[in-house]
């Protein structure tokens, strides 16, 4: 079950502060990288929502964010709609598309689920690539950014745009948090732990999975429309399956099923990639090896490992202090170590 522990809140605050600091101090490209990290963080947050709490290992989340980007581009660059409205539409349509994909794929499990989502991602890619209306392989240019000049915000300034993205990420986080602590989110975690029993209890398994997948799609639609605005250009590459694979890598790197972990993972991944590619063109090799090591080391990921260690230390301390009380308490520690640090603590 998901609990927003103080540790998670602290890390989120730290991340937010670090982003704000970076936005104000970094050079131009540093701010661009920051924006890239924040948008990617939204995508992996959405992925963790379904993969970490519903066991739905989706290999089409990158493509769905791409769908969001294209929908935003269509409604602004082609149809001339106001960007704010287009962002809403992009989120809704991506959510709807995700719902359809979720409904179909929820019937499959394990590797079949992964492959089924991959198939839908590739379908979207092929469709966009071959659509002359969408510019085919050339992509689409002329995508506007949101105009907030009436409230004194200039989004053409990369710093201010980065901060807008950060705000969106925080909203997305709160949204995901809310979903996970709602009836739907609770049921989803139950399904992940035992789908058969959930059914026997009367849970509408396919509906629950599909709905969370759709809600995750809302976040992706928002992320996609931000990434379209960030680059002000989109191409079918956005939908390529390697992006979806990378998103999965980041979720694991940061800590599956922790919600905050993947955000940290996104930062770590992008920074690592940029650092390594400064030294060699063969950054794939380095990133690949690091990935293998991380997964083999226990797959808790960066944040997962931190949480695990802190929980272990706390558990030890509790044990020392309350040694005589024993049995009853012991069970509580376990739940503690699972949820990280619980609120009461």
């Amino acid at each position: 079950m998901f609990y927003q522990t103080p540790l998670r809140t602290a890390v989120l605050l730290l991340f937010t502060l670090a982003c704000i600091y970076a936005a104000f101090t970094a050079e131009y490209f540093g701010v661009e990288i920051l924006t890239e990290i924040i948008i990617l963080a939204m995508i992996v947050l959405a992925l963790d929502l379904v993969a970490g709490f519903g066991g739905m290992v989706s290999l089409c989340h990158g493509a769905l964010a791409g769908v969001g980007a294209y929908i935003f581009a269509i409604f602004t660059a082609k149809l001339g709609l106001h960007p704010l409205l287009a962002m809403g539409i992009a989120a809704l349509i991506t959510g709807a598309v995700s719902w359809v994909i979720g409904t179909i794929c929820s019937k499959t499990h394990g590797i079949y689920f992964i492959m089924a989502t991959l198939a839908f991602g590739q379908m979207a890619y092929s469709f966009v690539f071959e659509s002359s209306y969408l510019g085919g392989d050339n992509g689409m240019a002329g995508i506007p950014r949101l105009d907030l000049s009436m409230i004194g915000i200039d989004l053409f300034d990369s710093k201010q745009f980065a901060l807008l993205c950060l705000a969106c990420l925080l909203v997305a986080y709160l949204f995901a948090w809310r979903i996970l602590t709602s009836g739907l989110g609770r049921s989803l975690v139950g399904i992940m732990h035992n789908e058969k029993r959930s059914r026997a209890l009367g849970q509408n398994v396919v509906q629950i999975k599909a709905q969370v997948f759709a809600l995750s799609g809302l976040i992706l639609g928002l992320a996609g429309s931000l990434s379209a605005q960030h680059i002000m250009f989109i191409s079918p590459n956005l939908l390529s399956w390697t992006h979806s694979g990378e998103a999965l890598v980041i979720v694991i790197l940061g800590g599956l099923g922790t919600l905050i972990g993947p955000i940290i993972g996104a930062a770590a991944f992008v920074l690592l990639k940029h650092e390594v590619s400064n030294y060699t063109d063969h950054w794939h090799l380095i990133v690949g090896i690091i990935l293998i090591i991380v997964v083999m080391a226990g797959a808790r990921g960066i944040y997962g490992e931190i949480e695990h260690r802190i929980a272990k230390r706390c558990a030890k301390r509790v044990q020392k202090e309350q040694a005589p009380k024993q049995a009853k308490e012991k069970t509580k520690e376990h739940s503690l170590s699972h949820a990280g640090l619980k609120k009461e603590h």
Partner: protein
Amino acid sequence: MLEVSDLCKRFGALEVTKNVSMRLEKGERRVILGPNGAGKTTLFNQLVGEIIPDSGSIKVNGQEVGDWSVEKRARFGLSRSYQQNTLFDGITIGESLGLAAAVSTSKSMWFWKDSLQDADVKAIVRDTAEQVGLEDNLGARVSDVSYGIRRQLEVGLALATRPSVLLMDEPTSGVGPEMIGAFHRLLGRLSRELTIVIIEHDMDLAFDVADSMTVLNYGEVVFEGTPGEARESEMLQQIYLGAWDDA
């Protein structure tokens, strides 16, 4: 309350359910007996929809549910426990019961409010925990507790959905005598409104709790009647009861 007629199922050449029919009144407690491989669990699986029978009908409260999904039948009030623990290993006992309670109060699909913090859900969790004796273990992780407690949770989950028909598949399998006693007391406290079908191998318990009995063998109903009739049935005594005592 529960009416099964002419249920048939075969796996290849093996006929696992042969024209099984039975009829339970509301509040009736039926024990199903039969040797291993008699098709008891398979019958349960068909009742709840995990296996689709080849033919026959299943009615709950007069409603044909034979073509409904597992979850729809469960929401309609048909609840079951498993012979082999089928639990939510990664979460706590309280959370598990909460999930079940959320379904019965239609809060499992709330997408804004927390079902586990809901007052109705919490009340059911509390009641159920008390019923099955888990009130001290609500915070414990399911994977961390003993087999006995897991067994109690297995029944608790089925109860927390607030069913009208409860199917229990060997609820006391693998537990010691004191727990069988506890289970016996639990049955005593359960509402007489609840219709219960139990697959049970503990003869004392079975004869004690049963209003009626069905005996299956090779997928066929070979006996149906009251415990008293069963005791007197020579056939059963010789063929089944005798055989079990040796085992």
